[in-house]
């Protein structure tokens, strides 16, 4: 079973410069800035509302500000359509809940020290580190977390493959929701 792989080389300096400009211009909301939207043009409207009707694979429209940007070039030149691309902020010395996702995720490290910040998959077990200058795919159907053990925040661009659909056939999802999603 694949857990983690490098997808493509990219220009880190350029993508970081553009990302930092967006962050400066827009500001964080719930630790996220959406680069794609479903219905309404906004950097924030599609921010994760856990338990709401937001459907990630429908967030496929790029924010108009990204027109002509390197970020959009990188994302549109992949061999699959991208959905739900977001800049995601993780505070220093913090992590997420250890969880599974309904989609697998792609990561582009923007501000991140791979020695100090890394993804962990306890069931495998596996530690994935992401140096600058690449796009990474992570099998987030597996139980995982991201730990930022640095003294500075971590920022990644995280996105999905728009062709993927929500995946519920997962023991952790079943434990949480019973057969609600599999009947």
């Amino acid at each position, binding site marked *: 079973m694949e857990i983690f792989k490098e997808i493509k080389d990219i220009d880190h300096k350029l993508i970081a410069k553009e990302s930092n400009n967006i962050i400066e211009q827009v500001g964080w909301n719930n630790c996220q800035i959406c680069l794609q939207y479903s219905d309404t043009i906004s950097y924030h409207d599609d921010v994760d509302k856990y338990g709401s009707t937001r459907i990630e694979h429908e967030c496929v429209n790029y924010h108009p500000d990204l027109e002509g940007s390197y970020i959009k070039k990188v994302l549109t030149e992949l061999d699959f359509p991208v959905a739900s691309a977001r800049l995601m902020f993780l505070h220093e*010395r913090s992590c997420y809940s250890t*969880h599974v996702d309904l989609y697998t995720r792609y990561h582009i490290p923007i501000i991140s020290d791979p020695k100090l910040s890394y993804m962990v998959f306890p069931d495998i077990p596996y530690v994935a580190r992401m140096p600058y200058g690449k796009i990474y795919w992570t099998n987030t159907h597996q139980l995982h977390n991201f*730990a930022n053990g640095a*003294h500075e925040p971590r920022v990644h661009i995280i996105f999905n493959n728009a062709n993927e659909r929500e995946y519920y056939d997962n023991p952790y999802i079943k434990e949480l929701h019973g057969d609600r999603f599999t009947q």
Partner: protein
Amino acid sequence: MNFEILKNLPVYNLDKELNKLLESNVVQWHTARDQICINTTKDELDNYNYGRGSLWYDWDKAYHDKNNELVVPTRKKPLFEKDFSFLCTVFVDTLFEEVYRALEKNYVLGRVRIMNLHSKNCLTWHKDNSIRVHYPIKTQEGCLMIIDNEVKHLEKNTWYRTNTLKHHTVLNGSKEDRLHLVATVLEEK
């Protein structure tokens, strides 16, 4: 070996014992609710906060300078692990004393601390100067320790020898506090 289960130390329900001490206000968390040090130095016998945090840096006085760089001042008087060789008075005649005496039989100890890691928090990726013995007092699924590239959930009421001479961290990916008793081992007897 990064993680080794130890069978030679007593297994008690320290969660219950700690709650009893906290509820009766015999012991209180520091405002950061991060650590309680059950042993201390000869001049601070009643002070279970004396061994909190770094022995060299005073994190309670950390600040960001005008360039937004983090500045952590050093302690006026650095402390040394080996000086923490007295059980704090509040823990005398508790289960913590029994555990402490059992640890003393097996190890030359430095600080022995109750470490609280809050939900969705992790420690820095760091190395220690000594190995550590861990005893999870309260833990949940999603609480992990990572040494080198090895990831492990440490089970409640189980003793582990952990090789913290290597780079490591711990994270709490659960929704509740995670409490471990952590003993600094200066020498194995």
